[in-house]
């Protein structure tokens, strides 16, 4: 223990003096926030609002950047075609030449053609051969009329069949839950526009809303993360998974918890309506069991690793699992959850559920899949370590920012606001690390179908997290709390960050282990539908949410704020539909990548045997 504290001392005060200064400035910031008396006159000029607008502008600019590069490559193609027609015109010109002129040109040409090299200048008589398998594809007709041709992933990763099956079944189940969960989300989104769509109790808004959130949380993101994690853990430890059977137990437990939990929710049995812990404890226990099996398996695999160092991804993945098991235990233990005790735990639980589970685990996945897709190492290992410990320290303390101005103790609210600002440290450390890893490889982005997903995920990691910190400030909370702005924020993060990164990882790894690539045009359709849909969703909810908050501050009758939201709800439904459509395309792409893995795998074996690897 003593050693540990020495280390922490060393870490925070010895080596990282700037960290302390940064902390102090946040405390100061909190003091300046101490007496909230915000003027709504100049709400447009408040730092939180300006910050948010700037952040969204960043994403828009990047989208425009991607679009321009795409356009310019298209223009290139058009130019090349133009050159070809010019050549044709030139040929016609030749035909019309006089005989004598032609003779002269031909004589010159003949002399030029007769010039000969000795033939020994470069390679001598060696026959051309690709002995190391460097050439992936030979094509004589590389011109695609619309976009750059993407590189196909080469068949390069030898994965044991049981691991391959585990990864594909985890991801497969997650793809199903994504489609199912967002179908529900799409349906409840439409209920804002048509409240009378149906009148079945099982399909009512109140009961379906948690079905949507829990399905995409525990069904989609969690299963996809764990499946992708299995590959990372085994690969970076250079060993095989400790126990394949445990992986299947966890698969069954988690899927079972989502199925049973959703049936309970729809039949009106829930834990009390606290967000993300709507499943009653026996169901949550199934999920926790899945996590415990996964943790044991990952931990033992790392423990039996064949390299001396633990790769940074595994820090995040193991940390995420440990923290989430603690979190679920505290979230469901009954001893301190009566009265407002429950509310404190609710703030802690819902925030950490996102931060310690989805965000932490996903960051771990980025640390492996991003550098491996770029075929280069991560920019800085130490930044990753700094982000890991600060993530644990700051994220844990900020749950109460969901209850600013509530009857919870004022000190608890202030701590949460101060450390929300502290979240800038891990977020900036992570974003910098990822962007600097990508630096120098920008041209790869337009040639890869994996990297655009990463780019969006990383940019949203910065934008979504920073915007969340700004939203915790008391003024911004004043305007936005309780409005649809929260819904925009959660989609910006759970969708913009987590989901986009998971897609990137899935597109990166599945072709590698199955040897089958998706149709590139469908990956493009998936990307753009999801991206445009998310934007329509976010912008409408942010604009509507802000207007709604201002209407409340003005003291207008409540119904006015419902009526003013109606067009924004329509736009949200449109954005949501695009997102849902993109998931169907994604499901098809996954099917193309993953069908019939068995014969494929024996083929892999054959290839490896033939090439004596």
């Amino acid at each position, binding site marked *: 223990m003593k050693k540990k504290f020495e*280390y922490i001392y060393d870490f925070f005060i010895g080596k990282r003096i700037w960290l302390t200064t940064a902390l102090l400035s946040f405390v100061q910031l909190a003091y300046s926030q101490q007496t909230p008396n915000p003027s709504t006159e100049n709400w447009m000029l408040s730092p939180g609002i300006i910050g948010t607008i700037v952040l969204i502008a960043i994403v828009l600019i990047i989208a425009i950047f991607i679009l321009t590069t795409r356009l310019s490559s298209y223009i290139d193609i058009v130019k090349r075609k133009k050159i070809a027609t010019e050549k044709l015109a030139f040929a016609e010109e030749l035909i019309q030449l006089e005989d004598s002129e032609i003779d002269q040109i031909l004589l010159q040409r003949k002399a030029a053609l007769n010039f000969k090299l000795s033939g020994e200048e470069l390679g001598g008589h060696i026959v051309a051969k690709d002995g190391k398998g460097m050439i992936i594809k030979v094509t004589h007709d590389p011109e695609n009329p619309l976009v750059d041709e993407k590189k196909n992933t080469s068949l390069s990763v030898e994965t044991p069949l049981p691991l391959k099956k585990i990864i594909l079944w985890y991801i497969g189940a997650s793809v199903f839950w994504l489609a199912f969960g967002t179908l529900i989300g799409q349906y409840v989104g439409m209920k804002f526009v048509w409240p009378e769509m149906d*009148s079945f109790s099982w399909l009512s808004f109140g009961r379906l*809303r948690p079905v949507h959130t829990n399905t995409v949380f525990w069904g989609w993101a969690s299963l996809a993360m764990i499946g992708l994690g299995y590959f990372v853990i085994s690969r970076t430890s250079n060993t095989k998974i400790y126990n394949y059977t445990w992986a299947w137990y966890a698969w069954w437990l988690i899927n079972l918890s989502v199925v049973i939990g959703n049936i309970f929710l729809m039949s009106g049995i829930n834990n009390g309506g606290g967000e993300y812990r709507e499943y009653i404890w026996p169901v949550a226990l199934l999920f926790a069991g899945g996590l415990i099996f996964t943790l044991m398996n990952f931990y033992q695999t790392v423990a039996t690793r064949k390299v001396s160092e633990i790769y940074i991804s595994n820090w995040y993945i193991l940390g995420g699992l440990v923290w989430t098991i603690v979190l679920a235990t505290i979230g469901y233990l009954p001893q301190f959850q*009566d*009265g407002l005790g429950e509310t404190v735990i609710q703030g802690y639980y819902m925030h950490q559920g996102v931060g310690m589970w989805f965000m932490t685990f996903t960051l771990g996945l980025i640390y492996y899949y991003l550098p491996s897709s770029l075929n280069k190492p991560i920019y800085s290992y130490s930044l990753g370590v700094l982000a890991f410990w600060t993530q644990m320290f700051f994220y844990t303390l900020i749950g*109460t920012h969901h209850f600013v101005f*509530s009857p919870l103790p004022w000190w608890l609210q202030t701590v949460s606001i101060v450390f929300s600002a502290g979240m800038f440290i891990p977020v900036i450390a992570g974003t910098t690390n990822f962007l600097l890893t990508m630096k120098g490889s920008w041209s790869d982005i337009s040639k890869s179908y994996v990297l655009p997903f990463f780019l969006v995920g990383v940019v949203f990691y910065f934008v979504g997290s920073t915007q969340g910190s700004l939203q915790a400030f008391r003024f911004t909370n004043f305007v936005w709390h*309780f409005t649809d702005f929260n819904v925009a924020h959660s989609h910006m993060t759970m969708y913009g960050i987590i989901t986009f990164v998971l897609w990137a990882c899935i597109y990166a790894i599945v072709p590698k282990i199955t040897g089958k690539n998706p149709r590139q045009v469908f990956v493009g359709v998936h990307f753009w539908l999801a991206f445009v849909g998310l934007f329509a969703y976010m912008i409408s909810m942010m604009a509507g949410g802000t207007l709604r908050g201002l209407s409340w501050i003005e*003291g207008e009758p*409540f119904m006015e704020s419902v009526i003013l939201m109606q067009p924004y709800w329509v736009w949200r439904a449109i954005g949501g539909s695009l997102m849902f459509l993109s998931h169907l395309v994604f499901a098809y792409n996954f099917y193309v990548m993953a069908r019939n893995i068995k014969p494929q795998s024996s083929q892999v074996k054959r290839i490896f045997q033939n090439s004596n690897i």
Partner: protein
Amino acid sequence: MLDFHKNHRLLVLTAFTVFLVLSIIIAVIPAYQLQETEPLPNMEALSDQELRGLQVYTAENCVACHTQQVRNIEMDNTWGDRPSMASDYYYSKMRQDVWRQSPSILGSERTGPDLTNVGKRQPGEEWHLLHLYNPRIVVKESIMPSYPWLFEEVSEKDIRKNDLVVPVPSKFLKDKDKKIIASEKAKDLIAYLQSLKQASLTANMKADEFIPASKKKEVTKSDEESNLVDGAQLYMKTCAACHQADGQGLSGAFPPLAGSSIVNDSNPETLIKIILQGYDARAEYGVMAGFAEMLTDEEVAAIANHERSSWGNSAPTVTKDEVKKIRDYIKMLNQ
């Protein structure tokens, strides 16, 4: 030494311990402390029926759209007379049973109105019944779901003596020959909603003050307070849920105000009395509760004037002194 990158046991153990300690400090201990809050002396425990209603409230996940917290900022003044405090939740936030924990009634979204004080704001049973059966019967623009499964559709002859018949207008009925009666669950839920009232504080207790939205607004308020009461807006907030924005009421439930002889009476006494005391004189309509506690004299006057000058009504203006006189008279009678 501190070789986290090589020692997996140390790494996982440190991550576990630090997180656990932080969690205990930031969540478990504050939660423990808050759990020891006592109820306010004026608060009543929820009756069995109200508790069952709370369970319906939780099962239908009403907390997804309705908050129950009055924050200490000025805009929340609409939802309660004082900011909520920990004691307010003493009876409603107990563990439900062995399977289900204390309901998260504070909520995180205000898609619909806050319900802290809905028992005071919307006391009538008929209104709640209609509103639950189909919210658009009483609030045209509402996007709240209907809850038909909390009601039964029966033919007229099957209605028993104790059944609570809901006066649903025929255009909202699927089968025009049937009648709608409330189930036990609907009655429980409504009992719970009617019980939602902020308890008053005792003399030696002081509530937090609301933080005003802007200083400027505060100044104007104290300066010209007397002229600023907007009768139309107050009517929309207080009365329109039943009597409707167009003053037409709802046949079978709430009487029309447009063309009403009481509203148009040049002597405003009866009108003011009804606003202050409530009304239950006509069998074909629901019971109206009094608003004496919720509205000041000038607010009552402003509402009365709005009613007497809208929807084709025309009657002389009421002053706040007239309201005060009637209020004092009622008080005297009650003593």
